[in-house]
C-alpha cells in the first residue's frame, strides 16, 4: 500500500473542491446567461428548444425603450427610479435615527419599544396591504399612486433598525461623552461624530432600502390599480407575461429584466466592500 504524500492528498481535495465550485458556478450563472441571450434573441416567442439564439438583435432593447403602446417601459422605469430614490433617502434617514436613539439614549420606554418592534417585525408587511389601501383612500391620496408608494416604503422603515443599532453599539461611548463635555448637542453627535464613523452601515442601509422598493410587486399591484401611467417596472413587466402578450413581448421582457438589473448591479459592485463590512460589523453585537 502506497502512502499518499500530504501534497498529493491536498491536491486531490483541492481538485474535488474546484470541480464542485465550477459546477455550482455554472448552475448559478446559466439562468443569467440565458436571460441575457434571450434579450438579444432575434426570434420572438417564449419557448425555444435550443439554447443559443439563431440570430442576434438590439431591437428588443430599442423597441422596449421607444414604444409607448402597449407598454410604457421608460415611463415605468422613471417612476420606479423616482420612488426608489426618494424612499431610499427617507428610509435610510429613519433607520439611522431609530438605531441611534435606541443605541445611545436611555429612556423609560426604550425596552418596551424595542419589544414592540420585535413583535411587529414578525408579521409580514403585505398582511396590512388592504388596510394600507383604505387608509390611503381615506386620505384621498390614491389619485397619485407614486406618492402613496413612497409613503408606504418610508413609513415602516424604522422597524428594520437592528443591524444599524448593532453597529452603533460598537462605537465607543467615550467619543460621545467627550463631545458632550465640549458642549455638543445630541444632534451634533449624531451628524458629526456617529455618522462619519459609520460609512459601512450607511452604505448597507442605502442598498437594502433602495432594493426593497425597486423590486417590490405586491404594494404597487394593490395601489396602482388601473392607473397605467403610474405603474412601476415590476408591475408593468408582469403585464408583458399575460397570455396575449407573452409571445410577442417575451424577448423584450428579457431585455427589460436586464435593464432593471443594471442599477442594482452597479450599486452593489461599487459598494460591495462596505456592504460586507456593514453586515459583519453590525452583527458583532446585536
Amino acid at each position, binding site marked *: 500500500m502506497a502512502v499518499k504524500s500530504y501534497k498529493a492528498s491536498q491536491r486531490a481535495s483541492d481538485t474535488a473542491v474546484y470541480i464542485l465550485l465550477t459546477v455550482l458556478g455554472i448552475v448559478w450563472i446559466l439562468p443569467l446567461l440565458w436571460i441575457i441571450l434571450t434579450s438579444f434573441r432575434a*426570434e*420572438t*416567442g*417564449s*419557448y*425555444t*428548444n435550443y439554447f443559443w439564439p439563431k440570430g442576434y438583435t438590439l431591437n428588443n432593447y430599442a423597441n422596449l425603450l421607444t414604444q409607448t*403602446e*402597449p407598454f410604457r417601459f421608460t415611463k415605468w422605469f422613471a417612476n420606479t427610479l423616482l420612488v426608489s430614490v426618494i424612499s431610499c433617502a427617507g428610509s435610510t434617514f429613519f433607520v439611522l435615527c431609530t438605531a441611534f436613539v435606541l443605541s445611545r439614549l436611555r429612556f423609560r420606554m426604550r425596552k418596551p419599544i424595542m419589544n414592540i418592534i420585535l413583535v*411587529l*417585525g414578525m*408579521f*409580514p*408587511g403585505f398582511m*396590512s*396591504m*388592504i*388596510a*394600507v*389601501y*383604505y*387608509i*390611503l*383612500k*381615506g*386620505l*384621498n391620496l*390614491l*389619485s*397619485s399612486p407614486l406618492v402613496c408608494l413612497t*409613503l*408606504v*416604503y418610508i*413609513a*415602516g*422603515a*424604522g*422597524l*428594520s433598525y437592528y443591524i444599524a443599532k448593532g453597529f452603533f453599539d460598537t462605537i465607543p461611548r467615550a467619543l460621545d461623552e467627550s463631545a458632550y463635555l465640549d458642549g455638543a448637542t445630541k444632534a451634533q453627535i449624531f451628524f458629526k461624530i456617529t455618522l462619519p464613523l459609520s460609512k459601512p452601515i450607511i452604505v448597507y442601509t442605502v442598498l437594502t432600502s433602495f432594493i*426593497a*422598493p425597486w423590486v*417590490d410587486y405586491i404594494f404597487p399591484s*394593490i395601489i396602482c*390599480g*388601473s*392607473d*397605467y401611467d403610474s405603474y412601476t417596472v415590476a408591475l408593468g413587466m408582469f*403585464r408583458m407575461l*399575460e*397570455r*396575449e*402578450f*407573452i*409571445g*410577442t413581448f417575451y424577448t423584450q421582457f428579457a431585455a427589460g429584466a436586464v435593464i432593471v438589473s443594471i442599477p442594482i448591479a452597479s450599486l452593489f459592485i461599487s459598494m460591495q466592500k462596505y456592504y460586507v463590512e456593514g453586515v459583519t460589523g453590525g452583527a458583532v453585537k446585536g
Partner: protein
Amino acid sequence: MNTKKILSAVLSAALSMSLFSACTGRNEDTSQQNSGGASSGNVTLTVWGSQEDQALLKRMCEEFAAQSTDKKYSFVYGVVSEADAKKEVLKDISAAADVFGFASDQTAELVSAGALYRITKDRDKISADNTVASVNAATVNDELYGYPYVSDTYFMYYDSSKFTEDEVKELEKMLAKDIEGVKTNFAFDTDNGWYQAAFFFGAGCKLFGEDGTDPTKCDFNSDRGILAGEYLIDLVKNSKYGVNFDDGMVKAGFADGTLAAAVSGTWNASEIEASLGENYAAAKLPMITLPNGEKVQMGSMANFKIMGVNSETKHPLEAMALAEWLTNYDNQLARFNERSYAPTNVKLAEDENALSSNPAVSALTEQSQYATVQTSIPQSGNFWTPAEAFGQDLTAGIITRDNLKEKLDKYVESVLSTLNG
C-alpha cells in the same frame, strides 16, 4: 418593506382627522370615478378594458358620446383586463369603474359581493340578441347582471400541408399518420384542467350537474368517465401525442415544423398564422373513438367576456346605455374585425360569410356548440388542482386500467370536497 404597522397607526390617526375635514377637490382626470358634474347634462364615466383593447375601447366610447344628443359624456379609461376584473373590483367597489368587462367565471362571485348592477333596461332585447349560453353565463337566479360580448373557448390549429380537412375530423386518423419531419401529430395540455375536461365532456360527463351550478355533483368517475380515463391512458402512451404542450411549446413547435396540430385559443392565432403561412388552418376539436368503439365529439370549456355595470355607479342609466352600446352588433363586429374576438351576438355568430374570413374564429364558433360553459360557482375553484394532479399522474404512468376507478373516485372526491366558510 418590512412592516407597515407603524404606518397604519400613524395614518389611521390622520385618516380620522381627514374624516372631519371636508373632502378637498379631486383631480378630475385621475380621480377614480363618479366625478361627473351635478347637472344632468354632463356625465363622466370610468371604463376599464384590457391593455390590448384600449384604442378600440376609446373609439367605441367616443362614438357613443357622439351619437348621444341629450348629454355630454366624458370618459376616464383604466387598464384592467377581463381576467383581473374580479380582483380589482372587489378590492374596492366604490373605486372601480362604472363599466368594466369581466370573464364569465367571475359572475357568481361578483354578484354575491354585490358589485354588479342588475340589468333591467332592454333586458329582453339583450337576451334575444346574444346566444343562450352567453346570456346564461351572465345570469344568476334569473336576474341578468351583464352584457355578453365575446365568446371564448379552445379549438384546434393545424398545418394544412400535413393534414387534410378530412383527417382532422378524427383524432385516431391524425395520430395514425406518419408525417416526415413531424415529431408530434397532436399537441394538448393534458394536465391543465381547462383543456383536460374536453375528454370527459366528450364522453358525456358533467361537472357540477346538468347546468353546472350544483356543487354536489361531478360524474367524472361514472362509467362514461372511466371510458374517457381509459382513452387518456392509451393516448398519453402514444409517442405522436404531445402530452404537455403549453402555449410556448405549441408556438415553437409550429415555428420549426415539428408539430402538425395543437389545441389552443385565439390569443395565439396571429403568431401561429405567421409561422404556418398559407398552411395555416383551424378546425373544431376532432372526434375520438372511446374504448367501447363509440365515436364522440370532444367537448371544451367555454368562457364569455361580459360587460358589467358597477352597482355603486352614480349614473346607472348612462352606464347601462354605454355597456349596451359597447356590446351591440356593430361593436362586436368591430371587435371581430380588429381583435379577432368571437362574437356572442346571434346574428353575427350565425353569419358564416363574415366569420369565414378568420379561420380561428370560425373554428371557435363551430366548437362552441359542443362546449360546456365554465361554471362560476365558488366550488369550481376546487376543480383545477385535482385535475392537474390527475393529468400529472396520467403522464407519469401512475394511472393504469387497474387503479383508474380508484383514482377517478379520488379526483371527484377532491372536486366535491366542501368549501369551508
